[in-house]
């Protein structure tokens, strides 16, 4: 049985997709000769040549803007923003063009562009290297946003994102790049917008994505010992959100906790909480709890562990919600 890291699985997804589609390009800063600072594009340039895999100047707006022009000429792009905090220079191109182009051209121009962004914290990185940008992109109408939580799922989701004719912001949890998972890489599976139950339970539904999913599973083990069984849901897609799975999970458990690294205010937790009310108000037996990063800038390495939702904080929230 093969063992995959998220980095290797994503690398394989790119290779397989490029072999399937000769008009798929991969470019960005240091993705060529170096193979990306996280090695996700390792070996691609040697394999597919400098025309299809290339380094660009340090110009994020230029990179994303170019992807639009390339799409107009029938080239699909997977571009990399080197880190979450460095996707911001491209914000105007992403929000004003990538998200709106199909709509403003009355469906005549699809933008099959995947914007890969190594995201979130947990790697003792410097400032601007631990941002959780999902709210910025998921709030933007016209963008699809996905964040895998594991290697095998990451492979599938990246293939799915590349297949999609709409632009997809692909948020890769840096903290999981080197985490291993056993199994085979399989491209097919659930569609865009489908979350998954990674562990079932009936006392409370816990929603998470990216690196927080693993923490929720740890919390689940801890709580199991206390006789509290929780359902852990990996949302995967932050836009479109799997509102049906969210609703069903709360109708079946009556309680919910949402976990994410991003600051609390206007994070996914608020959106999920609001959806829960819309989908399952009468089943709700306790207020939805949000276990999130604080409303402060991402802290330096020395304080990271005091900022990120810990297993204890997650478990405490569940206990509070369950005993409400």
């Amino acid at each position: 049985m093969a063992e995959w890291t998220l980095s290797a699985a994503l690398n394989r997804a790119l290779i397989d997709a490029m072999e399937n589609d000769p008009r798929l390009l991969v470019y960005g800063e240091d993705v060529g000769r170096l193979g990306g600072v996280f090695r996700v594009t390792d070996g691609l340039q040697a394999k597919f040549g400098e025309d299809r895999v290339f380094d660009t100047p340090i110009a994020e707006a230029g990179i994303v803007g170019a992807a639009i022009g390339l799409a107009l000429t029938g080239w699909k792009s997977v571009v990399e923003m080197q880190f979450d905090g460095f996707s911001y220079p491209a914000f105007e191109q992403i929000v004003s063009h990538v998200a709106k182009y199909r709509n403003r051209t009355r469906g005549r121009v699809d933008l099959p562009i995947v914007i890969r962004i190594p995201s979130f914290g947990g790697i003792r990185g410097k400032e601007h290297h631990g941002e959780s940008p999902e709210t910025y992109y998921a709030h933007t109408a016209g963008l699809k946003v996905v964040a895998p939580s594991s290697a095998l799922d990451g492979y599938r989701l990246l293939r799915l994102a590349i297949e999609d004719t709409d632009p997809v912001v692909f948020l890769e949890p840096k903290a999981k790049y080197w985490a291993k998972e056993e199994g085979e890489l399989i491209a097919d599976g659930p569609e865009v917008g489908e979350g998954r139950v990674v562990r079932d339970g009936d006392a409370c539904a816990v929603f998470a994505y990216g690196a927080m999913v693993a923490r929720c599973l740890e919390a689940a083990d801890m709580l199991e010992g206390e006789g509290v069984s929780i359902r852990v849901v990996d949302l995967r897609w932050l836009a479109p959100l799997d509102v049906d799975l969210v609703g069903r999970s709360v109708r079946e458990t009556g309680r919910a906790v949402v976990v994410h690294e991003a600051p609390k205010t206007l994070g996914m937790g608020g959106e999920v909480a609001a959806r829960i009310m819309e989908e399952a108000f009468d089943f709700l037996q306790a207020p939805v709890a949000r276990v999130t990063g604080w409303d402060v800038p991402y802290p330096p390495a020395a304080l990271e562990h005091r900022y990120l939702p810990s297993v204890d904080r997650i478990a405490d929230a569940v206990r509070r919600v369950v005993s409400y």
Partner: protein
Amino acid sequence: MDAPSHWAGTAPVRILEPDGTAVGDPDVGLDAEQLRELLRHMIRARRLDRECMALQRQGELTVYPPFEGQEAAQVGSAFALNTEDWTFPTFRELAAALVRGVDPVQYLWYHRGTWHGGPYDPRATRFGPICVPVATQICHAVGVAMGLQRDGADACALAYFGDGSASEGDFHEGANMAAVFGVPAILFCQNNGWAISVPTGLQTAGEIWKRADGLGFPGVRVDGNDVLAVYRVTTEAAQRARSGGGPTLIEALTYRMGPHTTADDASRYRDEDEVERWRAFDPIDRYRTWLVSAGHADEDFVRTCEEEAATWVAEVRAGITATEAPPAEWMFDWTFADPPVVLARQREEALGG
């Protein structure tokens, strides 16, 4: 006649003097019919531009950005491109759009508030969507040029932008990437002296065409009110681009005769004398005078152009005023190729369907 400040410095490439006398070789490779075509385009463009001002006053358009005074810059450059070439406009390139064969009624949907930037088919026309976030379209044109380069196509991509837009970071990122990759792109700046109320002198302390040198590719400054000169430099840039010679930056010196848009009151920041002085530089008078004196056309031809243009403009007016508000469905139909369930429900809620 003393040209205003933004023309100071390096003398631009010029073939025709403002008074219509030729100072350079007027043989730019166009036959008499094509030469007449240039005038026809400019006359039609100006007629339609003025009609649009009227349409806006009459409430048929929401806001309109007139291009009067810039006909030569737009027609001369657009005419220099082949059908396979791409063009990326700002919000003021209606004249270029006409030359590129974009349907004026669909184009004006934008200014009527019927739909957004790309109501016409940007692929079929190879004319990009009307672009308002200034300078962003430069990066799109460079991306197209990257695609053409990979396809080994015998084509290039031209991006229009203004003197003010050239202050944006996207100008630099796009121009630099074009140079590094040596792609077939033309960065065509219409320096019309103003960015809304801000004169070019407050946008840059240098000459825009010179920026190319610092990025390692050729730049040229041309009299943007001289349609022959604009045609020539654009043709040269396009040929260089298509033959692997990389990008070119063209700074076309022209002047915005009207307000920034119909919502703008130019009297708040510039005096009418300046505008009046500019009449002497009118691109259409200049070219017509030369065309007739050179014997490529007679006054009859000019009159016919005017009449034909009048009828055509009337048709466009009829077409745009007859354009009805789009159905609310349009709001939902194109955000995604496959509307997610959440959006589908919103659609139902909104349309009560």
